[in-house]
């Protein structure tokens, strides 16, 4: 079932990234994520509640985060500051929000918790349900989306 759960997040991820950055992302193959999950330096974690429960985690390098934030703001990137952190948090919120609407169309009605941003190297995230992940590749870097969901 995990495969069916990650698809809406990848579709929403491609659509939202294209809308906010103006660049089309290429989606790579879905693979099992490691346990624990060892994300890139910038991770955005959202909780899913409702018909499905668990977490969605976006992760990317600091340079990719700064680059995406710069495109989202229509500005020269100024490094990974508070505004950039807020921008990529909102990116996570928008991707998960749009995915939740797609899941709702399959009668899986879900809500989201506000995004938490985790910043730093060598982070290990222990997930209750083994996650699947896939990369969305943009010219300025890779955004990995990991989904760990189970039916409530």
């Amino acid at each position, binding site marked *: 079932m995990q495969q069916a759960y990650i698809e809406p997040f990848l579709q929403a991820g491609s659509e939202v990234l294209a809308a906010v950055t103006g660049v089309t992302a290429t989606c790579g193959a879905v693979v099992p994520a490691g346990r624990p999950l060892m994300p890139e330096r910038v991770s955005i974690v959202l909780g899913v509640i409702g018909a499905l429960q668990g977490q969605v985690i976006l992760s990317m390098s600091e340079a990719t985060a700064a680059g995406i934030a710069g495109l989202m703001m229509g500005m020269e990137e100024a490094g990974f500051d508070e505004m950039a952190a807020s921008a990529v948090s909102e990116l996570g919120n*928008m991707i998960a929000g749009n995915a939740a609407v797609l899941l709702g169309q399959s009668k899986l009605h879900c809500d989201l918790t506000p995004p938490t941003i985790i910043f730093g190297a060598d982070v290990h995230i222990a997930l209750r349900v083994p996650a699947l992940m896939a990369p969305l590749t943009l010219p300025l870097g890779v955004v990995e989306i990991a989904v760990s969901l189970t039916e409530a």
Partner: protein
Amino acid sequence: MARILIADDALFMRFTLKRTLTQAGHEVVAECENGQQAIEKYGEVQPDLVFLDITMPELDGLSALHAIRESDDAARVIMCSALGHGNKVREALDAGARDFIVKPFTPERILEAVNKALA
């Protein structure tokens, strides 16, 4: 030209909304980070129009929408959320919201909603 209140917990969203609105000649008279602040500021600054996010700490945007519309039944409110569920959209419009914008949005979508709400 309208005096507008913005409530969104994300710094980035307040920044982009404010830029879109001010570039179009509007004035952002208050920026709030949660629904409770929005209710308090609404009474204080009496804006022409309010932008409310839905998922916010302290008090969410739908609760703030109900409270603002109770205090002023002429209040013009536009909801702006990443979560555009049918039931959330219906609840907002039933409670008197003028429009429901799903993030991500374009500047054109924002200004179209503003113009319609002010007409």
